[in-house]
Protein backbone atom coordinates (compact mmCIF):
# COMPACT_ATOMS: atom_id res chain seq x y z
CA UNK A 1 0.00 0.00 0.00
CA UNK A 2 1.34 3.43 -0.82
CA UNK A 3 1.89 5.96 1.94
CA UNK A 4 -1.00 8.31 2.74
CA UNK A 5 -0.80 11.77 1.27
CA UNK A 6 -1.69 14.99 3.07
CA UNK A 7 -2.76 18.21 1.41
CA UNK A 8 -2.77 21.35 3.55
CA UNK A 9 -4.74 24.32 2.25
CA UNK A 10 -3.52 27.59 3.75
CA UNK A 11 0.19 28.16 4.33
CA UNK A 12 -0.11 30.39 7.40
CA UNK A 13 0.78 29.84 11.03
CA UNK A 14 -1.49 26.81 11.43
CA UNK A 15 -0.86 25.19 8.04
CA UNK A 16 2.90 25.69 8.18
CA UNK A 17 3.04 24.30 11.71
CA UNK A 18 0.92 21.28 10.75
CA UNK A 19 3.45 20.35 8.04
CA UNK A 20 6.26 20.66 10.57
CA UNK A 21 4.49 18.60 13.26
CA UNK A 22 3.62 15.87 10.74
CA UNK A 23 7.31 15.44 9.92
CA UNK A 24 8.33 15.78 13.57
CA UNK A 25 5.89 12.97 14.42
CA UNK A 26 7.38 10.73 11.75
CA UNK A 27 4.84 11.09 8.94
CA UNK A 28 6.53 9.79 5.79
CA UNK A 29 4.00 10.32 3.02
CA UNK A 30 3.88 13.24 0.60
CA UNK A 31 2.82 16.62 2.03
CA UNK A 32 1.47 19.41 -0.19
CA UNK A 33 1.23 22.91 1.24
CA UNK A 34 -1.02 25.23 -0.76
CA UNK A 35 -0.90 28.93 0.07
CA UNK A 36 -2.51 31.92 -1.57
CA UNK A 37 0.19 34.32 -0.42
CA UNK A 38 3.47 34.27 -2.35
CA UNK A 39 5.41 33.82 0.91
CA UNK A 40 6.46 30.84 2.99
CA UNK A 41 4.51 30.51 6.26
CA UNK A 42 5.25 33.40 8.61
CA UNK A 43 4.17 34.76 11.97
CA UNK A 44 1.60 37.55 11.98
CA UNK A 45 1.87 38.88 15.56
CA UNK A 46 4.96 41.01 14.85
CA UNK A 47 3.21 42.70 11.91
CA UNK A 48 1.45 45.09 14.28
CA UNK A 49 4.32 45.22 16.78
CA UNK A 50 8.09 44.74 16.39
CA UNK A 51 8.02 44.45 12.59
CA UNK A 52 5.91 47.58 12.14
CA UNK A 53 8.32 49.52 14.34
CA UNK A 54 11.25 48.26 12.28
CA UNK A 55 12.60 46.02 15.03
CA UNK A 56 12.23 42.71 13.18
CA UNK A 57 12.94 41.64 9.60
CA UNK A 58 11.30 39.22 7.17
CA UNK A 59 13.69 36.46 8.23
CA UNK A 60 12.57 36.61 11.80
CA UNK A 61 8.91 36.50 10.74
CA UNK A 62 9.40 33.23 8.86
CA UNK A 63 8.17 30.12 10.67
CA UNK A 64 10.93 27.96 9.18
CA UNK A 65 13.92 28.89 7.03
CA UNK A 66 13.52 28.41 3.25
CA UNK A 67 15.79 25.38 3.25
CA UNK A 68 13.53 23.44 5.62
CA UNK A 69 10.80 22.77 3.05
CA UNK A 70 13.16 20.98 0.66
CA UNK A 71 14.85 19.12 3.51
CA UNK A 72 11.50 18.03 4.94
CA UNK A 73 10.20 17.18 1.47
CA UNK A 74 7.16 19.44 1.69
CA UNK A 75 5.84 20.27 -1.80
CA UNK A 76 4.87 23.93 -2.01
CA UNK A 77 2.15 25.54 -4.07
CA UNK A 78 2.72 29.17 -3.08
CA UNK A 79 0.56 31.67 -4.89
CA UNK A 80 -1.89 28.77 -5.23
CA UNK A 81 -5.54 29.15 -4.34
CA UNK A 82 -7.73 26.15 -3.59
CA UNK A 83 -11.10 26.69 -5.22
CA UNK A 84 -12.94 23.41 -4.73
CA UNK A 85 -12.95 20.30 -2.62
CA UNK A 86 -14.32 17.14 -4.16
CA UNK A 87 -14.97 14.94 -1.15
CA UNK A 88 -16.07 11.94 -3.20
CA UNK A 89 -12.88 11.88 -5.25
CA UNK A 90 -10.84 13.17 -2.28
CA UNK A 91 -9.22 15.86 -4.35
CA UNK A 92 -8.68 19.61 -4.15
CA UNK A 93 -8.75 21.78 -7.23
CA UNK A 94 -6.52 24.85 -7.43
CA UNK A 95 -7.24 28.01 -9.40
CA UNK A 96 -4.44 26.98 -11.76
CA UNK A 97 -6.48 23.93 -12.71
CA UNK A 98 -4.18 21.53 -10.89
CA UNK A 99 -5.93 18.82 -8.93
CA UNK A 100 -4.30 17.41 -5.80
CA UNK A 101 -5.64 14.16 -4.46
CA UNK A 102 -5.42 13.48 -0.74
CA UNK A 103 -5.87 10.82 1.86
CA UNK A 104 -6.15 13.55 4.48
CA UNK A 105 -6.92 17.20 3.90
CA UNK A 106 -6.15 19.93 6.42
CA UNK A 107 -7.98 23.22 6.02
CA UNK A 108 -5.94 26.07 7.50
CA UNK A 109 -7.34 28.98 5.55
CA UNK A 110 -7.43 31.43 8.48
CA UNK A 111 -9.63 34.49 8.56
CA UNK A 112 -9.82 37.72 6.62
CA UNK A 113 -10.38 41.23 7.96
CA UNK A 114 -13.94 42.44 7.98
CA UNK A 115 -14.21 45.60 5.91
CA UNK A 116 -16.79 48.34 6.23
CA UNK A 117 -19.37 48.46 3.45
CA UNK A 118 -19.52 52.23 3.42
CA UNK A 119 -18.90 55.00 0.95
CA UNK A 120 -15.22 55.53 0.25
CA UNK A 121 -14.16 52.07 1.44
CA UNK A 122 -12.31 51.52 -1.82
CA UNK A 123 -10.24 54.72 -1.62
CA UNK A 124 -6.49 54.29 -1.63
CA UNK A 125 -5.18 54.51 1.92
CA UNK A 126 -8.06 52.60 3.47
CA UNK A 127 -6.13 49.64 4.84
CA UNK A 128 -6.48 46.39 6.71
CA UNK A 129 -3.80 44.51 8.59
CA UNK A 130 -3.64 40.76 8.10
CA UNK A 131 -0.79 39.95 5.76
CA UNK A 132 2.84 40.94 5.39
CA UNK A 133 1.81 42.88 2.28
CA UNK A 134 -0.80 44.78 4.31
CA UNK A 135 1.82 45.57 6.93
CA UNK A 136 4.21 46.87 4.27
CA UNK A 137 1.52 49.23 2.94
CA UNK A 138 0.63 50.43 6.43
CA UNK A 139 4.25 51.06 7.32
CA UNK A 140 4.61 53.18 4.21
CA UNK A 141 1.74 55.36 5.42
CA UNK A 142 3.33 56.06 8.82
CA UNK A 143 5.95 58.53 9.90
CA UNK A 144 6.38 61.79 11.79
CA UNK A 145 3.33 64.00 11.40
CA UNK A 146 1.35 61.54 9.26
CA UNK A 147 -2.21 61.14 10.52
CA UNK A 148 -3.59 57.65 10.97
CA UNK A 149 -7.24 57.00 11.79
CA UNK A 150 -7.88 53.55 13.23
CA UNK A 151 -11.41 52.21 13.04
CA UNK A 152 -11.93 49.73 15.85
CA UNK A 153 -10.25 49.61 19.23
CA UNK A 154 -9.46 45.89 19.35
CA UNK A 155 -6.03 44.32 19.84
CA UNK A 156 -4.80 44.77 16.29
CA UNK A 157 -5.98 48.40 16.26
CA UNK A 158 -4.41 49.26 19.60
CA UNK A 159 -1.14 47.50 18.82
CA UNK A 160 -0.95 49.38 15.53
CA UNK A 161 -1.73 52.61 17.42
CA UNK A 162 1.21 52.04 19.78
CA UNK A 163 3.56 51.22 16.90
CA UNK A 164 2.35 54.20 14.86
CA UNK A 165 3.03 56.50 17.81
CA UNK A 166 6.53 55.06 18.09
CA UNK A 167 7.01 56.01 14.42
CA UNK A 168 5.87 59.56 15.14
CA UNK A 169 2.44 59.42 13.51
CA UNK A 170 -0.64 61.12 14.92
CA UNK A 171 -3.27 58.55 15.83
CA UNK A 172 -6.98 58.71 16.44
CA UNK A 173 -8.88 55.56 17.37
CA UNK A 174 -12.55 55.56 16.40
CA UNK A 175 -14.70 53.03 18.22
CA UNK A 176 -18.42 52.32 17.97
CA UNK A 177 -18.67 51.02 21.54
CA UNK A 178 -18.31 53.18 24.63
CA UNK A 179 -14.95 51.62 25.43
CA UNK A 180 -11.97 50.10 23.63
CA UNK A 181 -11.49 46.28 23.68
CA UNK A 182 -15.22 46.03 24.35
CA UNK A 183 -15.58 42.61 22.71
CA UNK A 184 -12.49 41.03 24.22
CA UNK A 185 -11.71 42.50 27.61
CA UNK A 186 -13.32 43.68 30.83
CA UNK A 187 -14.08 47.37 31.52
CA UNK A 188 -11.15 47.69 33.96
CA UNK A 189 -8.73 46.67 31.26
CA UNK A 190 -10.39 48.89 28.65
CA UNK A 191 -10.09 51.86 30.95
CA UNK A 192 -6.45 51.15 31.68
CA UNK A 193 -5.48 50.74 28.02
CA UNK A 194 -7.36 53.83 26.97
CA UNK A 195 -5.63 55.91 29.63
CA UNK A 196 -2.21 54.50 28.74
CA UNK A 197 -2.69 55.18 25.04
CA UNK A 198 -3.93 58.66 25.89
CA UNK A 199 -0.75 59.33 27.84
CA UNK A 200 1.17 58.32 24.72
CA UNK A 201 -0.68 60.81 22.57
CA UNK A 202 -3.41 58.68 21.03
CA UNK A 203 -6.80 60.38 20.86
CA UNK A 204 -10.10 58.55 21.01
CA UNK A 205 -13.54 58.97 19.51
CA UNK A 206 -15.73 56.51 21.41
CA UNK A 207 -19.37 55.81 20.83
CA UNK A 208 -18.75 57.02 17.31
CA UNK A 209 -20.36 55.76 14.12
CA UNK A 210 -18.38 55.94 10.91
CA UNK A 211 -20.53 57.07 7.96
CA UNK A 212 -18.06 57.33 5.13
CA UNK A 213 -14.47 57.85 4.10
CA UNK A 214 -13.90 61.04 2.18
CA UNK A 215 -11.14 61.49 -0.32
CA UNK A 216 -9.49 63.53 -2.98
CA UNK A 217 -8.10 62.10 -6.22
CA UNK A 218 -9.03 58.59 -5.16
CA UNK A 219 -7.05 58.83 -1.93
CA UNK A 220 -8.56 58.89 1.54
CA UNK A 221 -8.45 62.27 3.31
CA UNK A 222 -10.94 61.98 6.12
CA UNK A 223 -13.35 59.90 8.18
CA UNK A 224 -16.91 61.20 8.29
CA UNK A 225 -18.61 60.47 11.60
CA UNK A 226 -22.32 60.05 12.28
CA UNK A 227 -22.34 63.32 14.27
CA UNK A 228 -21.41 65.19 11.14
CA UNK A 229 -17.74 65.86 11.87
CA UNK A 230 -15.04 64.80 9.45
CA UNK A 231 -11.69 63.85 10.97
CA UNK A 232 -8.83 64.54 8.58
CA UNK A 233 -6.30 61.75 8.02
CA UNK A 234 -3.68 60.47 5.60
CA UNK A 235 -4.56 56.80 6.03
CA UNK A 236 -7.21 54.65 7.69
CA UNK A 237 -6.66 51.27 9.30
CA UNK A 238 -9.84 49.24 9.59
CA UNK A 239 -9.57 46.77 12.45
CA UNK A 240 -13.11 45.63 13.17
CA UNK A 241 -12.68 41.91 13.46
CA UNK A 242 -12.18 39.00 11.11
CA UNK A 243 -14.34 36.57 9.20
CA UNK A 244 -13.33 32.89 8.92
CA UNK A 245 -12.41 31.71 5.43
CA UNK A 246 -14.80 28.76 5.59
CA UNK A 247 -16.41 29.05 2.14
CA UNK A 248 -14.50 26.07 0.69
CA UNK A 249 -15.79 23.95 3.55
CA UNK A 250 -19.35 25.25 3.22
CA UNK A 251 -19.37 24.61 -0.52
CA UNK A 252 -18.48 20.96 -0.08
CA UNK A 253 -21.06 20.46 2.65
CA UNK A 254 -18.93 20.30 5.82
CA UNK A 255 -20.65 21.36 9.05
CA UNK A 256 -19.98 25.06 9.61
CA UNK A 257 -21.17 27.48 12.28
CA UNK A 258 -19.25 30.69 11.72
CA UNK A 259 -16.14 28.57 11.16
CA UNK A 260 -15.64 24.90 10.33
CA UNK A 261 -16.94 22.72 13.14
CA UNK A 262 -14.31 20.30 14.43
CA UNK A 263 -13.77 17.92 17.33
CA UNK A 264 -10.84 17.67 19.74
CA UNK A 265 -8.79 15.94 17.04
CA UNK A 266 -9.50 18.94 14.80
CA UNK A 267 -11.52 16.59 12.58
CA UNK A 268 -14.46 18.02 10.64
CA UNK A 269 -17.75 16.26 9.87
CA UNK A 270 -15.80 14.43 7.13
CA UNK A 271 -13.33 11.99 8.76
CA UNK A 272 -10.70 12.66 6.07
CA UNK A 273 -10.78 16.43 6.50
CA UNK A 274 -9.37 18.48 9.38
CA UNK A 275 -9.69 22.21 10.04
CA UNK A 276 -7.25 24.14 12.23
CA UNK A 277 -6.45 27.68 13.33
CA UNK A 278 -8.59 30.79 12.89
CA UNK A 279 -11.02 29.02 10.53
CA UNK A 280 -11.99 26.30 13.01
CA UNK A 281 -14.96 26.32 15.36
CA UNK A 282 -13.56 24.10 18.07
CA UNK A 283 -14.64 22.50 21.32
CA UNK A 284 -13.38 24.08 24.53
CA UNK A 285 -13.38 21.18 26.98
CA UNK A 286 -12.79 23.46 29.98
CA UNK A 287 -15.87 25.51 29.24
CA UNK A 288 -18.24 23.00 27.73
CA UNK A 289 -18.82 24.86 24.49
CA UNK A 290 -17.64 25.37 20.91
CA UNK A 291 -15.89 28.57 19.94
CA UNK A 292 -13.67 30.09 17.28
CA UNK A 293 -10.35 31.36 18.64
CA UNK A 294 -7.92 33.67 16.86
CA UNK A 295 -4.54 33.11 18.42
CA UNK A 296 -1.18 31.54 17.75
CA UNK A 297 -1.39 29.09 20.68
CA UNK A 298 -4.74 27.88 19.28
CA UNK A 299 -3.25 27.44 15.79
CA UNK A 300 -0.35 25.44 17.24
CA UNK A 301 -2.53 23.27 19.48
CA UNK A 302 -4.86 22.35 16.65
CA UNK A 303 -1.95 21.75 14.25
CA UNK A 304 -0.68 19.24 16.82
CA UNK A 305 -4.14 17.67 17.18
CA UNK A 306 -4.54 17.12 13.44
CA UNK A 307 -0.98 15.89 12.91
CA UNK A 308 -1.33 13.50 15.87
CA UNK A 309 -4.62 12.11 14.57
CA UNK A 310 -3.13 11.56 11.11
CA UNK A 311 -0.07 9.66 12.36
CA UNK A 312 -2.13 7.83 14.99
CA UNK A 313 -0.46 9.12 18.13
CA UNK A 314 -2.13 10.51 21.25
CA UNK A 315 -3.12 14.14 20.86
CA UNK A 316 -1.71 16.94 23.04
CA UNK A 317 -3.21 17.59 26.47
CA UNK A 318 -5.96 20.21 26.01
CA UNK A 319 -4.49 23.63 26.72
CA UNK A 320 -6.03 26.60 28.46
CA UNK A 321 -6.66 29.07 25.61
CA UNK A 322 -4.21 31.96 25.88
CA UNK A 323 -3.11 35.06 24.06
CA UNK A 324 -0.62 37.88 24.41
CA UNK A 325 -0.37 41.45 23.16
CA UNK A 326 2.46 43.99 23.34
CA UNK A 327 1.78 47.74 23.40
CA UNK A 328 4.43 50.28 24.41
CA UNK A 329 6.17 48.73 27.42
CA UNK A 330 3.06 46.75 28.35
CA UNK A 331 2.86 43.01 28.12
CA UNK A 332 -0.71 41.80 28.22
CA UNK A 333 -1.16 38.07 28.75
CA UNK A 334 -4.59 36.51 28.84
CA UNK A 335 -5.45 32.97 29.87
CA UNK A 336 -8.87 31.37 29.69
CA UNK A 337 -12.18 32.84 28.61
CA UNK A 338 -14.50 34.73 30.95
CA UNK A 339 -17.51 32.47 30.20
CA UNK A 340 -20.02 32.12 33.05
CA UNK A 341 -17.98 34.33 35.39
CA UNK A 342 -20.05 35.97 38.11
CA UNK A 343 -17.49 38.39 39.48
CA UNK A 344 -14.13 39.93 38.81
CA UNK A 345 -11.26 40.57 41.15
CA UNK A 346 -8.47 43.03 40.48
CA UNK A 347 -5.13 42.01 41.94
CA UNK A 348 -2.58 44.83 42.07
CA UNK A 349 -3.03 48.46 41.11
CA UNK A 350 -3.72 49.59 37.53
CA UNK A 351 -2.03 52.92 38.40
CA UNK A 352 1.29 51.06 38.65
CA UNK A 353 0.78 49.44 35.22
CA UNK A 354 1.22 46.01 36.79
CA UNK A 355 -1.99 44.27 37.72
CA UNK A 356 -4.29 41.42 36.80
CA UNK A 357 -8.02 40.98 36.49
CA UNK A 358 -9.34 37.57 37.51
CA UNK A 359 -12.73 36.39 36.26
CA UNK A 360 -14.30 34.07 38.79
CA UNK A 361 -17.23 31.70 38.82
CA UNK A 362 -17.77 31.17 42.52
CA UNK A 363 -14.26 30.29 43.66
CA UNK A 364 -13.10 28.90 40.31
CA UNK A 365 -10.87 30.99 38.06
CA UNK A 366 -12.35 31.15 34.54
CA UNK A 367 -9.94 33.66 33.02
CA UNK A 368 -7.16 36.08 33.88
CA UNK A 369 -6.05 39.24 32.09
CA UNK A 370 -2.56 40.17 33.26
CA UNK A 371 -0.76 43.41 32.46
CA UNK A 372 2.98 43.27 33.18
CA UNK A 373 2.18 40.50 35.63
CA UNK A 374 3.60 37.17 34.42
CA UNK A 375 3.17 35.40 37.78
CA UNK A 376 -0.55 36.18 37.74
CA UNK A 377 -0.76 34.92 34.16
CA UNK A 378 1.23 31.74 34.70
CA UNK A 379 -0.40 30.83 38.00
CA UNK A 380 -3.82 31.85 36.70
CA UNK A 381 -3.41 29.56 33.70
CA UNK A 382 -2.57 26.74 36.07
CA UNK A 383 -5.59 27.47 38.27
CA UNK A 384 -7.90 27.54 35.27
CA UNK A 385 -6.74 24.15 34.00
CA UNK A 386 -6.88 22.53 37.43
CA UNK A 387 -10.50 23.46 38.09
CA UNK A 388 -9.92 23.55 41.83
CA UNK A 389 -11.26 26.29 44.12
CA UNK A 390 -8.97 29.17 44.95
CA UNK A 391 -8.91 31.22 48.15
CA UNK A 392 -10.39 34.55 47.12
CA UNK A 393 -8.87 36.32 50.12
CA UNK A 394 -5.40 35.14 49.21
CA UNK A 395 -5.90 36.02 45.57
CA UNK A 396 -6.84 39.57 46.52
CA UNK A 397 -3.84 40.00 48.81
CA UNK A 398 -0.75 41.07 46.87
CA UNK A 399 1.51 40.39 49.86
CA UNK A 400 0.81 36.70 49.23
CA UNK A 401 2.75 35.42 46.20
CA UNK A 402 0.96 33.77 43.30
CA UNK A 403 3.03 30.66 44.03
CA UNK A 404 1.35 30.43 47.38
CA UNK A 405 -2.09 31.27 45.99
CA UNK A 406 -1.76 28.48 43.44
CA UNK A 407 -0.16 26.00 45.83
Amino acid at each position, binding site marked *: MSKPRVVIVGAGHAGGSAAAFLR*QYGFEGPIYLVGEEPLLPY*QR*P*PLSKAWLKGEADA*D*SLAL*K*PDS*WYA*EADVALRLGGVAVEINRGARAVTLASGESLSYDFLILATGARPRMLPIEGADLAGVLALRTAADAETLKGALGPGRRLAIIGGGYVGLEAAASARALGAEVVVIERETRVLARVACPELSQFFQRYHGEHGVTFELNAGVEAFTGTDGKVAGVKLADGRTLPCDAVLVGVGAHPNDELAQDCGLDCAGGVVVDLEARTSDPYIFAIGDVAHRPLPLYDRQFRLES*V*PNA*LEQAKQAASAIVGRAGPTPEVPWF*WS*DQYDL*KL*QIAGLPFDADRILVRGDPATASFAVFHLKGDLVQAVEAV*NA*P*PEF*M*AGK*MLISRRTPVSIDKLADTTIS*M*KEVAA
Partner: protein
Amino acid sequence: MAKITYVEHDGTEHVLDVKPGLTVMEGAVKNNVPGIDADCGGACACATCHVYVDEAWRDKTGTASAMEESMLDFAENVEPNSRLSCQIKVTDALDGLVVRMPESQH
Protein backbone atom coordinates in the same frame (compact mmCIF):
# COMPACT_ATOMS: atom_id res chain seq x y z
CA MET B 1 29.22 34.09 13.73
CA ALA B 2 29.06 32.53 17.15
CA LYS B 3 29.29 28.79 17.55
CA ILE B 4 26.52 27.60 19.84
CA THR B 5 26.00 24.07 21.07
CA TYR B 6 22.41 23.09 21.80
CA VAL B 7 22.05 19.87 23.78
CA GLU B 8 18.69 18.13 23.71
CA HIS B 9 17.45 16.46 26.84
CA ASP B 10 18.41 13.04 25.51
CA GLY B 11 21.98 14.25 24.94
CA THR B 12 21.76 14.88 21.18
CA GLU B 13 24.05 17.80 20.35
CA HIS B 14 23.52 20.41 17.65
CA VAL B 15 26.52 22.65 16.99
CA LEU B 16 25.51 25.67 14.97
CA ASP B 17 26.86 28.97 13.71
CA VAL B 18 24.45 31.67 14.79
CA LYS B 19 24.48 35.20 13.45
CA PRO B 20 25.05 37.90 16.09
CA GLY B 21 21.89 39.92 16.55
CA LEU B 22 19.63 36.87 16.56
CA THR B 23 18.57 35.41 19.87
CA VAL B 24 19.68 31.99 21.07
CA MET B 25 16.06 30.88 20.52
CA GLU B 26 16.07 32.11 16.90
CA GLY B 27 19.32 30.25 16.26
CA ALA B 28 17.59 27.04 17.34
CA VAL B 29 14.33 27.60 15.49
CA LYS B 30 16.04 28.58 12.22
CA ASN B 31 17.99 25.35 12.35
CA ASN B 32 15.15 23.09 13.45
CA VAL B 33 16.69 22.15 16.76
CA PRO B 34 13.96 20.14 18.48
CA GLY B 35 13.04 21.03 22.05
CA ILE B 36 12.76 24.79 21.61
CA ASP B 37 9.19 25.37 20.45
CA ALA B 38 9.10 29.15 20.99
CA ASP B 39 5.31 29.33 20.71
CA CYS B 40 5.18 33.10 21.22
CA GLY B 41 7.96 33.83 18.77
CA GLY B 42 10.14 35.54 21.35
CA ALA B 43 7.62 37.75 23.12
CA CYS B 44 8.67 36.41 26.54
CA ALA B 45 5.09 35.17 26.95
CA CYS B 46 5.19 31.37 26.71
CA ALA B 47 8.33 29.89 28.36
CA THR B 48 8.57 27.14 25.73
CA CYS B 49 12.13 28.26 24.90
CA HIS B 50 13.57 27.46 28.34
CA VAL B 51 17.27 26.41 28.42
CA TYR B 52 20.01 25.82 30.97
CA VAL B 53 23.07 27.96 30.35
CA ASP B 54 26.34 26.11 30.98
CA GLU B 55 27.97 27.41 34.19
CA ALA B 56 31.01 28.80 32.40
CA TRP B 57 28.77 31.08 30.33
CA ARG B 58 26.42 32.43 32.92
CA ASP B 59 28.28 35.74 33.33
CA LYS B 60 28.48 36.34 29.59
CA THR B 61 24.81 35.73 28.88
CA GLY B 62 23.83 38.38 31.41
CA THR B 63 20.93 38.12 33.79
CA ALA B 64 17.22 37.69 33.31
CA SER B 65 14.93 40.72 33.41
CA ALA B 66 12.22 40.85 36.06
CA MET B 67 9.66 39.79 33.44
CA GLU B 68 11.77 36.80 32.39
CA GLU B 69 12.43 35.88 36.04
CA SER B 70 8.76 35.68 36.81
CA MET B 71 7.94 33.66 33.69
CA LEU B 72 10.69 31.22 34.69
CA ASP B 73 9.38 31.10 38.22
CA PHE B 74 6.41 29.14 36.91
CA ALA B 75 8.14 27.08 34.22
CA GLU B 76 8.87 23.38 34.74
CA ASN B 77 12.21 21.95 35.92
CA VAL B 78 13.71 25.36 36.69
CA GLU B 79 17.35 25.54 37.89
CA PRO B 80 19.49 28.50 38.95
CA ASN B 81 21.01 28.57 35.45
CA SER B 82 17.64 28.57 33.67
CA ARG B 83 16.97 31.24 31.04
CA LEU B 84 14.45 31.91 28.31
CA SER B 85 16.55 31.56 25.17
CA CYS B 86 14.54 34.22 23.34
CA GLN B 87 15.87 36.76 25.83
CA ILE B 88 19.55 36.01 25.16
CA LYS B 89 20.94 38.04 22.26
CA VAL B 90 23.80 36.40 20.43
CA THR B 91 27.02 38.41 20.26
CA ASP B 92 30.56 37.46 19.27
CA ALA B 93 31.28 37.16 22.98
CA LEU B 94 28.97 34.14 23.08
CA ASP B 95 31.13 32.16 20.61
CA GLY B 96 31.32 28.68 22.18
CA LEU B 97 28.15 28.96 24.27
CA VAL B 98 26.57 25.69 25.42
CA VAL B 99 22.88 25.48 26.36
CA ARG B 100 20.89 22.43 27.40
CA MET B 101 17.18 21.77 27.23
CA PRO B 102 14.95 20.71 30.09
CA GLU B 103 13.12 17.41 30.18
CA SER B 104 9.75 19.12 29.89
CA GLN B 105 10.66 20.29 26.37
CA HIS B 106 11.54 16.78 25.30
